[in-house]
């Protein structure tokens, strides 16, 4: 059989399933066509990359000083641009106002075990999306540097953090209720630290699971999930990347992940809740 048409392979890479069964058989056994498809898939994956979960480090301050000196730049530019107001380092977290106010206190989402990848014609996107998100999973760090800033996605610059003194401000919280076949319950709370960082604290009662427990925030319809890290004990604190708008990602989800190296959401959620803003 001849090699598959590149047109067919490119549509497959975009999540469509054109072609015959014979085409699929050919693809399964032909390294050349598989490699072509993989190249296309890589493009789709990169193009739909979700940068918010990817953490970046920052160069030391002396690096800018060295550049400044070597190039003989204007003295007005002597200060490290990374430390400048409006730089990512100083970017305050989203204000409380960004947290969505649910029209009803309980829309049933917290309790209802909604499948992560609902059927329907729009199945494709979550899959592409999940793969991309999986590629970018990084534990939250105190630095809060994320690729979202590089890709210009850090959200709208917001007003200065409230000057109410050096205490953490509770932005939102939710009870975590167990999903089918699970028993663990607890609560989730989002706090804003004095430096603007938002932290999600999870408390979840012990439950024997087959794998490890991973913490996610997700969109209301669960079509988008961002991993914040692994919940080792009953309590864990995770930094919410500045690029994450909690109004868009109000769902807190804890999954049971198998030790199989697959970083995507397992579809096996242990407990879930939807954040309500705290007045």
């Amino acid at each position, binding site marked *: 059989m001849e090699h598959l048409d*590149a047109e067919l392979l*490119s549509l497959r890479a975009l999540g469509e399933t054109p072609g015959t069964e014979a085409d699929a058989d050919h693809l399964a056994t032909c390294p050349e066509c598989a490699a072509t498809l993989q190249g296309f898939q890589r493009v789709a994956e*990169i193009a739909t990359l*979700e*940068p918010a979960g990817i953490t970046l480090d920052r*160069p030391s301050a002396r690096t800018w000083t060295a550049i400044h000196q070597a*190039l003989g730049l204007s003295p007005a530019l002597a200060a490290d641009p990374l430390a400048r107001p409006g730089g990512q380092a100083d970017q305050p977290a989203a204000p409380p106002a960004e947290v969505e106010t649910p029209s009803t206190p309980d829309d049933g989402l917290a309790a209802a075990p909604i499948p992560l990848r609902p059927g329907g014609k729009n199945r494709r996107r979550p899959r592409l999306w999940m793969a991309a998100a999986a590629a970018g999973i990084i534990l939250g760090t105190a630095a809060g540097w994320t690729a979202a*800033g590089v890709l*210009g996605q850090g959200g709208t610059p917001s007003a200065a953090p409230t000057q109410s003194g050096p205490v953490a401000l509770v932005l939102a919280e939710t009870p975590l209720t167990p999903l089918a076949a699970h028993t663990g319950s607890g609560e989730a709370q989002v706090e804003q630290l004095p430096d603007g960082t938002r932290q999600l604290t999870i408390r979840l009662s012990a439950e024997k699971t087959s794998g490890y427990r991973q913490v996610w925030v997700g969109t209301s319809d669960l079509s*988008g999930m961002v991993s914040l890290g692994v919940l080792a004990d009953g309590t864990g604190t995770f930094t919410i990347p500045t690029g994450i708008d909690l109004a868009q990602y109000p769902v807190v989800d804890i999954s049971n992940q198998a030790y199989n190296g697959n970083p995507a959401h397992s579809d096996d959620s242990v407990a879930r809740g939807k954040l309500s803003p705290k007045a």
Partner: protein
Amino acid sequence: MEAAATRDWDPGLDQAFAGGDENALAEAYRRLSPLVYTLALRSLGERNAADDVTQEVFIRAWKSRTMYRPEVARLPAWLVGITRNAINDALSARARQRHVEEAVVQLLPDPAAGPADGSVEAVADRLILDDELEHLGDPQQAILRLAFYDDLTHDQISSRLNLPLGTVKSHIRRSLTRLRTRLEVEHGTP
């Protein structure tokens, strides 16, 4: 939620940089030095070496700004290219050094540097892809954006843009091939 690297990037910055505005250099540093640094750190494994590469990249970029063509590439994509060159240079220099010293001291990687991390490379690739996407022209660009970000099938794109099905399909094939080639060239595996 759709990342929009180059769409969010002010083209005025590219022009200002090419025109020698030092503020544009500082702004490029503010926006892109964490990515440059993290790419270097993941490849070289040492913070000092990554700082050196970051320094080198921005110095090189500024010194060759008269060769930079804003109409050919956006600044983020251009800087990623320079970064990858500078990292390769640092790796070759290290290999030569190792050869000379013949394992006198085995350099221990900085544990703080973390493991090699493909996701940072993916962010860099994303800047490259966004750049290439911008240069596809229309309707190719519109077609791919609908496929990637609005998640439309080629059927739906065809009716949305009122283009024949065959045209949409061949545009998708050609555009994906072009983007794939650009990524491969970027990684030295044509």
